[in-house]
């Protein structure tokens, strides 16, 4: 019974936290874009435009739902739901604080990678089911991208597992306790390539969640709106929310694996606030990059993965193994 109450309260907590975040990350993005671009951004809808996400959400919910004629009705309707469900499930494993984790798995890392693949699938599904050529191209792009970047991401994650000896996310964080040089990103004594592998992981996570400069699935100037071309109203809204959700997951995962999760940089008062601080910093970095960089091409993207990231992550794996063996 206690367990049930615990799960239910976490469910409510996560839903509220998630809803608030997904709405307001959109606001952060628009406001941030404004300030980066020499303008103000939303300001007249509520103080500092803070009611903007509510207006957008309410509007999207009250929009007409259209299923295009040549779309596959069932798949078309289920793709955004699938995207959102996968994202929400992912949040179950994230340890926000030492005891603040909805469900602690011993194999949390595997769980995350397993479910995260579904996000790519939902894009393919949405793209294919729309019956639109732009969406189809976007879907195929997203899948090849997803496949290409999952490999270096996984290999980099494996190095972390080798160092810490566990796949439990909370355990991984615990192993980084103490001052900030114990964090994996600075752990040069564990593997000399750690800072670079942090970058690799971060770049891969950005590519996995289809963010600029790797947003080839959406590619506004080429594919109209990519896989969401045919989605209006809440279908579009769900995809957008799933994207922000994935952004949070990507940032949290990077935080957990490399930045010491809920650990304080100076070994004092560890707790969820540190986790959130680090996660939001990474999210802001992702937003910042989006409004700064042009988009790559598909070929440039795949080249990056297959020619640079994968060989590098393999080298990284070997070097880490060597360090573990020798020291």
């Amino acid at each position, binding site marked *: 019974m206690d367990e049930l109450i615990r799960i239910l309260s976490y469910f409510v907590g996560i839903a509220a936290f998630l809803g608030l975040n997904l709405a307001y990350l959109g606001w952060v993005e628009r406001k941030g*874009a404004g300030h980066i671009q020499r303008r103000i951004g939303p300001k007249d809808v509520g103080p500092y435009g803070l009611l903007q996400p509510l207006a957008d959400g309410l509007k999207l919910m009250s929009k007409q739902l259209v299923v295009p004629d040549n779309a596959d009705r069932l798949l078309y309707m289920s793709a955004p739901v699938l995207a959102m469900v996968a994202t929400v499930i992912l949040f179950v494993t994230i340890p926000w604080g030492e005891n603040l984790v909805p469900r602690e798995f011993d194999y949390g890392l595997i769980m995350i990678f397993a479910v995260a693949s579904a996000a790519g699938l939902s894009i393919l599904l949405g793209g294919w089911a729309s019956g639109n050529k732009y969406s189809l191209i976007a879907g195929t792009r997203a899948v090849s991208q997803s496949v290409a970047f999952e490999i270096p991401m996984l290999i980099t994650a494996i190095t972390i597992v080798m160092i810490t000896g566990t796949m439990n996310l909370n355990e991984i964080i615990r192993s980084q306790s103490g001052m900030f040089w114990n964090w994996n990103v600075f752990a040069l004594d564990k593997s000399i390539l750690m800072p670079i592998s942090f970058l690799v992981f971060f770049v891969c996570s950005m590519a996995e969640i289809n963010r600029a400069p790797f947003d080839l699935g959406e590619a506004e*100037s*080429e594919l109209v709106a990519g896989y969401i071309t045919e989605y209006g109203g809440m279908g579009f809204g769900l995809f957008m929310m799933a994207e922000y959700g994935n952004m949070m997951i990507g940032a949290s995962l990077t935080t957990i694996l490399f930045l010491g999760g809920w650990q304080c940089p100076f070994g004092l008062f560890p707790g969820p606030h540190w986790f959130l601080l680090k996660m939001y910093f990474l999210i802001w970095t992702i937003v910042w990059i989006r*409004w700064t960089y*042009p*988009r*790559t*091409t*598909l070929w*440039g993207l795949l080249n990056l993965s297959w020619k640079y990231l994968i060989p590098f992550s393999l080298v990284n794996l070997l070097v880490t193994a060597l360090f573990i063996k020798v020291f």
Partner: protein
Amino acid sequence: MTLLAQSQLQETFELNIGPQHPATHGVLRVKVIMDGEYIVKAEPVLGYIHRMHEKMGENRTWNQFWPNLGRLDYLSAIAYNHGYAGLLERAMGIEVPERAEYIRVITVELNRLQSHLLWFGAFILDLGGFTPLMYAFDEREQILDLLESVTGSRLTYCYFRFGGVYNDVDDDFITGTRAFIKRLRPQIPMYHDLVTKNVILMERLVDIGHISADMCRKYGATGPVLRGSGVNFDIRKNEPYSVYPELDFDVPVYHECDSMARYMVRMDEMEQSMRIIEQALDKMPDGPVKAEKAPKILKPPKGDYHFAVEAARGTFSMRTVSDATNTSYRMRLRSPTYSNLSLFEEASRGMLLSDALAFMGSLDLVIPEMDR
């Protein structure tokens, strides 16, 4: 589709880009046959904004045709004004006061600056970078303010008159222009730092969209496209008009023939435009801005007349057939992007879709000018 054998058909598919598509900057439509992500054939379809400018040339009097020039190429409208003014001044033998010529050059070059700025932003937008557009627009608004103060409109200028300009510039304009150039000059190196040296941008522009000089010649491509292919051709130098011979400026030429070369040509042209404006401001004499003896009723002698100017996108030339009445018998407008785009079909063969759209952006298209 008849161009493709049936066996090929099974591997390719047709994609219709436009007439409403973010990459076409208006209402251009491109019928693309694609093999995966590669383009087999891309055929531009025009006409979605055909506005009968040539027909209007025939049923409007010479003076009534002025507003059309502002609406042809709304981004370098003053250069188009210059083309029309030059045409009739050549036909009628009207002398233009020197001050008017300098004002013309200053406004045309300001207009060219804002056109290139907008292109810069829109081009990076094509490549997926959003922020440079806003920076470019911010600078552009300054130019629009200056031009508005002297011409009275923001975009579709109708400023020139036969034998001069409509309105004299005042001291505010001159000081404002100097201040603006002082402001813009350090911005361009900043753009180079922020944008040009970006790795992703280099990857997307270098060696993409190769156009040889001979291909340019066959298709009649002009302007930055031609100069990016290593041909030193600029109407301002090769067929001097107005007071350009008295001003010292360079024609930027790049020999790489790729999108990056065209990009660099335009970026360098902005600097040259600023040089021209500064010199023209220094040299501008006092005097009238409109020819005193300009006839009220225009009836050019019978015959053909031709006049070419360097607009922001290339050679804009006008050809008129006059039958000595107050309207033109035939008015032909040769727009630069019309010819520049006509090589797209040949040049885009075998390109990636995303590269082809970047290449199209590097041609700097303005659709209403193309469709006329």
